């Protein structure tokens, strides 16, 4: 039924990332708490990382590297590097977002997003 020698096709990774992204979108739209919305954002970042790495591993460039008198076929690490930058930006976003949540909690005594509406047209 399942041949373990064949790697998992890239469609499965895309499907998993899509479902995870949709879960994150649902959380962003449905949750009222600011911290819960930030957590849903992190889910969406992770879905993007999965797609980046999966595409690069399956459809990326493979080139031969001569290292230490041995030739080795290596896959291009571009997707992983993009994922590392996404992780960096997500960490910065989490820090600023949580600081904003704490500042809003101190100001409004609540981080319910329906209470923070002074900038709403």
């Amino acid at each position, binding site marked *: 039924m399942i041949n373990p020698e064949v790697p998992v096709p890239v469609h499965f990774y895309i499907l998993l990332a899509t479902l995870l992204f949709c879960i994150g979108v649902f959380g962003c739209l449905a949750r009222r708490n600011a911290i*819960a919305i930030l957590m849903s954002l992190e889910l969406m970042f992770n879905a993007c990382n999965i797609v980046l790495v999966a595409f690069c591993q399956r459809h990326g460039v493979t080139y031969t590297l001569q290292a230490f008198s041995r030739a080795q076929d290596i896959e291009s690490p571009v997707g992983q590097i993009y994922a590392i930058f996404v992780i960096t930006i997500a*960490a910065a976003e989490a820090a*600023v977002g949580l600081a904003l949540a704490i500042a809003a909690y101190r100001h409004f005594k609540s981080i319910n997003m329906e209470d923070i509406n002074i900038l709403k047209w």
Partner: protein
Amino acid sequence: MTLDVYQSLWSYLDWVARNLFGAAQPHLWFWALSVVILASGIGVVTTRNLVHAAMLLALCFVGVAGIFILLNSEFLAAVQVLVYAGGVVTLIIFAIMLSESITGRKIVAHNRQSVAALGVALMMAIVMVAILLYNQEGYYVGPWRWWVTPQRNDFPAISNAQLIGRSLMSTYTLAFWIASVILAIAMIGALILARGESDIPEERDRPPGTCSMRFQRMRSSSHEHHARGDLKHDTAESEEPE
């Protein structure tokens, strides 16, 4: 593989361990990790208790790290566990604790689940020891050889972390610098945003656009000194425009 080959429970466990940890089972691991990731993601967006949501988020991040290992990106998996499951979830839990009364009830630090926690820790210990006892090919190496470095002759000439390090230091250096500057800016901005109001009570009703009360007091006291002529050597240097 029929089960009647295995005479005892231990040999059956041996077979399970060899087929789980040893041989490559990408499909099995993919489906298991997918179930974990999607279930914990749904839990994150649906559960009411925010602390439970943060714990499920950590579980989801660990599952995504497993997906990265399936995709031959070990360094990224380590970064995922360290940064996301270690850093971001801790930050989120700190924010939840700082803004208590979100969930409507006080968050308790101690619970009555220490027996269950002990069981989970023991299971993790058993799994880790089992990983130590079996080598890459799934053969039992025995408890007396756990300190021996595994011998592999197909060891890659350049590892995943080396590859990423070379790329970050050669091709993507500018992006690396920009990311570090962004991290520094975010850290300073988060500090300024979260610093909040002062603890000194008179600082709270200071009108906007004026300097700090303590600094005003310092300045006015030095004016008094000038007026009384206590600091003669200072008057020559700082002229007061009346």
